[in-house]
């Protein structure tokens, strides 16, 4: 199969340059359909980037995931690190404080706009 594909970037959405694109799209659409209903853990699917990766690695022969009309947000191989309760608590508090900081920055930015307007 790899003979039919031309190497492209795995981390972008660039359309691959294909020697016989129509045939390959049909071929991989068939794979995609089967995988979407039967076996989403098939190693042919690499979903951390929205691509189909024939070589099974993060670079190599790839096709845009969107070709299969499948949700590209499924990440069966994504690593979800376990954290301690203390880390989780800390993360939650940091998220709260950062959100409040962003909100305040937005207010400051808007305030500058209205002050400028008042000076006209």
């Amino acid at each position, binding site marked *: 199969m790899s003979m039919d594909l031309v190497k492209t970037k795995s981390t972008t959405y660039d359309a691959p340059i294909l020697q016989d694109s129509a045939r390959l799209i049909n071929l991989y659409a068939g794979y995609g359909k089967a995988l979407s209903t039967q076996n989403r853990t098939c190693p042919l699917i690499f979903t951390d980037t929205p691509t189909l990766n024939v070589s099974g690695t993060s670079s190599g022969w790839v096709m845009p995931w969107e070709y299969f009309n499948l949700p590209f947000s499924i990440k069966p191989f994504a690593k979800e690190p376990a954290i301690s309760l203390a880390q989780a608590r800390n*993360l*939650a508090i940091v998220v709260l404080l950062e959100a409040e900081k962003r909100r305040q920055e937005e207010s400051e930015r808007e*305030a*500058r706009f*209205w002050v400028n307007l008042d000076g006209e």
Partner: protein
Amino acid sequence: MIYEFPRPDEPICQGDIFHYIPRIEFDLGKLPVIEGEKILNKDWINVSKINSPVTILVAARPVEAIVINQNCDVVRTNDIALCEISSMENVIPYSRDTKTPKGWMSIITKHSRENLKWFYLPIDSTIHFNNRMAVDFRSVLHASRIYLEKNLGQLRIGRLNKIAVEHFRERLSEYFRRYPYDEWYPLNKVEFEEYRKDKDKGDTKPFPYQT
């Protein structure tokens, strides 16, 4: 001034002011999801694919807030929608430099007509507002109606009086009725160039008749 104090058995109304309403924040890209004995950092999109409830560890801050549901909805709805109340300094940062009555008059009247994102709440020790406060329409919260009703005596600290709530509901509706538009659309070519010199932050694009 503009506040009144309903008895605990009076129903919740638009303009009721509560304290200790939780404002919850979480990062959808890094949710601490509790699975069994483990806590995993997960992306919400992955979590949502499971299509069943999950337990997430989040942080909450108790804040003051005002009911924005109209009165008929308040009677029936499961969740009450409220807008956060914060100090004027937080909501309108430039107000911190305001010292004179004339300055405050300008902010409270003129600025509030132009900038529709907030609603002014004056100082009143009876409601424990020891600073000038403002409703921030950008921050909408939800709380269980049943819970609020059960705890009105502890959570409701007052309500806007009749005249204040009339102004409040008008401002509230104005805020959500707004829509964006390019204010330079009626300027002629020369006026547009002046506008661009004065205000352009890189996103001012002329209409065809302004080039």
